[in-house]
């Protein structure tokens, strides 16, 4: 009964350009998704071991928790890149870089959010002609000294309100020192910002959404790398060795600093974790709070993606050492 009328082949399907021969990304994506749906049950079985299960949970949790902040930062950075003229920053920041660093560091206080938001914003600032030293000070201070994080710290340490002040001072000092250090020693060829397509000739809307898409895909990919590393360590490393480290003051500071790097906890939540590490001294816990927002596994991956690997390899160890030094000094004076 059904008369099927064969549609004559239309010209649309015939490949006209060499591009059609390449595997396009939507095609690969569709194939991959189909494959995964078909292989669903073996994958589930492989993931049902307790280690794998807690790994996946932590992994998904880190990504899900960080994505909203990443999107916020990306929107902000796209807005900076497209709608704010470079001359604005030239007027807003002192022209002498040595002065611009502390100003940018203090400006970090107004970006309320997690560290994931500050990486794309700092990238956009550099691209917009802000001195790298100032942008880096902003990158380091923003996640640690904004009002939300300081409030969380006050709530987590109800008996030690001086922790809030100590965290603010130590983070700001470390961020500014890092900025000045970059100004003295840093070389611009270490910074390798991925080339952005020139936005001229496009409408502002197109440029804005293009920038959002590119940054989410790019920084998001590196976020996934960092989340995988953090989840692996959380699921595999035993916690019992922390006990032995707590007794030696110097070792305690170092241990908690390393732990902050490894755990990659969101800066809004790390104060609660620090509060629960009761066997450690206050100074050691301050080091945990200062190091964590400045450098951790997922941040390292994202910095390597945004500023280039050569930059991240030099920047991360320096930040780590400076953050510890600043925390110990502040802890010695204030706590």
């Amino acid at each position, binding site marked *: 009964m059904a008369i099927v009328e064969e549609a004559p082949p239309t010209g649309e399907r015939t490949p006209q350009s060499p591009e059609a021969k390449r595997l396009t990304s939507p095609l690969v994506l569709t194939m991959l998704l189909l494959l995964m749906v078909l292989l669903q049950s073996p994958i589930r079985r492989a993931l049902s071991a307790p280690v794998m299960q807690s790994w996946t*949970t932590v992994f*998904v949790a880190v990504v899900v928790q960080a994505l909203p902040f990443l999107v916020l930062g990306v929107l902000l950075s796209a807005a900076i890149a497209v709608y704010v003229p470079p001359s604005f920053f030239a007027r807003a920041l002192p022209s002498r870089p040595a002065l611009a660093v502390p100003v940018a560091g203090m400006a970090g206080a107004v970006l309320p959010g997690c560290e994931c938001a500050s990486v794309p914003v700092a990238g956009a600032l550099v691209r917009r002609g802000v001195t790298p030293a100032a942008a880096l000070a902003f990158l380091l201070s923003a996640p640690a000294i904004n009002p939300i994080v300081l409030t969380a710290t006050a709530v987590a340490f109800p008996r030690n309100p001086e922790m809030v002040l100590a965290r603010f001072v130590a983070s700001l000092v470390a961020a500014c020192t890092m900025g000045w250090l970059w100004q003295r020693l840093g070389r611009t060829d270490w910074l390798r910002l991925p080339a952005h397509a020139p936005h001229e000739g496009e409408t502002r809307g197109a440029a804005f959404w293009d920038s959002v898409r590119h940054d989410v895909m790019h920084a*998001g990919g590196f976020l996934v790398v960092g989340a995988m590393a953090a989840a692996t360590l959380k699921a595999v490393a035993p916690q019992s060795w922390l006990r032995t480290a707590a007794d030696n003051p110097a070792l305690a500071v170092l241990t908690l600093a390393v732990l902050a790097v490894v755990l990659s*906890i969101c800066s809004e*939540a790390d104060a609660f974790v620090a509060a629960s590490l009761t066997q450690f001294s206050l100074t050691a816990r301050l080091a945990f709070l200062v190091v964590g927002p400045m450098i951790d596994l997922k941040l390292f991956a994202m910095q390597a993606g945004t500023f280039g690997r050569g930059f991240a390899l030099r920047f991360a160890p320096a930040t780590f050492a400076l953050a510890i030094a600043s925390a110990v000094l502040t802890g010695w004076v204030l706590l």
Partner: protein
Amino acid sequence: MLFLLGAALLHAGATDLYLRYVKAGLRPLLLAAGAVLIVTALATAWYERRRAGGGHGEGHAHPEPRVSWLLILPLLALILVAPPALGSYSATRTGTALQEPLAYPSLSAADPLPLSVVDYAGRAVYDHGRTLAGRTVRLTGFVALDHDGTPYLVRMALNCCAADAQPVKVGLTGHIPPVLQPDTWLAVTGGYTPRTVRDPVNGGPIPFLEVTDARPVPTPRDPYDESWNN
């Protein structure tokens, strides 16, 4: 791809799935981020079409960096596997995170009295059970077995996301069901007992509960205890 990621976030935010990974307060942010991602995907598609329609036909200027393919992993994990909330495996490997409560608000007169695991443990350890004397309480949590077989009732306390979740443990003694499967959720009724032990992982205090009755219950809507962050 962005569209799928946004849709997955929206799905997790619109259902209770997100409670397995992050705190309840992040829900509006999750929904907003999902919406932004979808708008981005649509905007990209729209501009792409206009560009193609304009006759330039030069394709897209810069393709996605290769690293962004990794974004597919959390997407698959979220859609296909939807990993469960942290359970007994993490609980036995992490020390109890019990901290001294700021105050001990007076308890309601209900009998048995529903209490959170964190609240009970705090009162039992740091108030030496003064507010609990003579009361029958009911706690809800999941079962975790120590390597020597001691059963604990555990609730993970969460501040931001599952990466910072820490367990608070209460030991079970008295009329315990003969067979306890780790990760089953129980509603346990019982009374205060002064016995405490040190957690073998971090030396934190673990109070005990003299159990009179234990019933399996379904997993609660929010598997974590979020009382710390409000």
